[in-house]
């Protein structure tokens, strides 16, 4: 496997921003639970996961900033991790639609985390063998963290699905809300091609894990359902991302270059 074939600088930048945006937006959504978790231990758990994800995003942004600085056709004001996170507009964000969806109730938050962490788990498993040393290093580090996220979220899916009538009802409602956004994870954008990731294998592994956890959660859902929503990876986002960024970027937009 040789990654250096056909990978332009622009493609690497877009790919890194996509990985970073996924982690940052998911991490930011999780941080919205901070202080509002159903019980203290779970408030701490979801805040920990937020911290891991924002840390991964920082690693990807820091790495992306290097080729951006050297490139002539990239905006010159976007050369630090902070400017990449705080000064890009909705259309420039490359995260998948799943991560920008609102948290909803605990069941929706959990199911979103489970879908996303399972995806990250199989993606990073492949990326830790990538020919690009820095990408490989970030993925290997993140994989250990994501392993804990998969465990935690799948245990909660099982607890809710195999819990009370009410918890099961909510989990099924979350499934109806979120399933349509899972297909996009496995539809490669142009910048994801030739990055030595096998999307077919990744989708197979993801489906297998999701089905086995659903079975344990005693929920019976039509996972082969075809209708999917996509566009996030290329900047076509739902209204939710604009609202999220308005809040997340407010300080830097209102007080440029402020620090604390």
């Amino acid at each position: 496997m040789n990654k250096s074939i056909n990978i332009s600088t622009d493609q690497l930048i877009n790919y890194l921003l996509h990985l970073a945006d996924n982690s940052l937006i998911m991490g930011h959504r999780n941080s919205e639970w901070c202080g509002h978790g159903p019980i203290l231990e779970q408030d701490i758990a979801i805040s920990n996961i937020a911290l891991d994800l924002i840390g991964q995003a920082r690693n990807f942004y820091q790495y992306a900033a290097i080729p951006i600085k050297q490139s002539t056709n990239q905006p010159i004001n976007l050369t630090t991790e902070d400017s990449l996170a705080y000064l890009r507009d909705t259309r420039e964000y490359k995260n998948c639609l799943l991560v920008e969806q609102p948290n909803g109730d605990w069941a929706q938050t959990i199911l979103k985390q489970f879908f996303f962490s399972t995806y990250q788990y199989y993606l990073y498993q492949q990326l830790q063998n990538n020919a690009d040393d820095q990408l490989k290093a970030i993925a290997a580090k993140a994989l250990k963290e994501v392993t804990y996220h998969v465990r935690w979220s799948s245990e909660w899916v099982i607890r809710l699905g195999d819990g009370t009538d009410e918890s099961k009802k909510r989990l099924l409602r979350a499934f109806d809300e979120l399933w349509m956004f899972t297909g996009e994870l496995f539809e490669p954008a142009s910048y994801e091609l030739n990055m030595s990731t096998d999307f077919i294998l990744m989708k197979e592994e993801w489906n297998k894990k999701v089905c086995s956890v659903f079975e344990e959660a005693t929920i019976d859902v039509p996972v082969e359902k075809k209708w999917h929503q996509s566009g996030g990876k290329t900047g076509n986002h739902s209204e939710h991302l604009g609202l999220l960024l308005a809040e997340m970027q407010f300080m830097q937009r209102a007080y440029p270059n402020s620090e604390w």
Partner: protein
Amino acid sequence: MIDLKDKQAVNKIWRILETVTDPEVPVLSILDLGIVRNVQLNGDEVEIYITPTYSGCPATDAINTNIRMVLLENGFSTIKITQQLSPAWTTDWMSEKGKEKLKAYGIAPPHSKQIVCAPDSFQKEEAIQCPQCNSYNSRLVSQFGSTACKALYQCNDCKEPFDYFKCH
């Protein structure tokens, strides 16, 4: 050929780094944690290679500042801190002395064999020894604790809750 003077300087730097502690677990020095991968002299410049423990660890920035401060105090004026991500840090790099200090501080040290680092749900938990009464009869309360590096446990014998420095 390594200059003898350089070698002495590098040894001195290692001894200085021993005094920099982890702000989140102040009994551990950064050498106990195993995050300092290399110290090298490039002429007048001191270059320190640090491998962060966790992607989102807020202590990393504080540790880097503290390294700079203490080296400046000791007369080294040009300091470069290089973040080395590969190979990824693991709890296996923590020194035995560090593990003893953790236990004395009331945190159960990480097991050397990483057996719970798998994504399967509801795995049989490892028996973690209570740092207060040494009983192995403990239970996991939460995989996520007060900082990214810890899980929360409770001892079934002495009933004390305690932190476990989890495997990574």
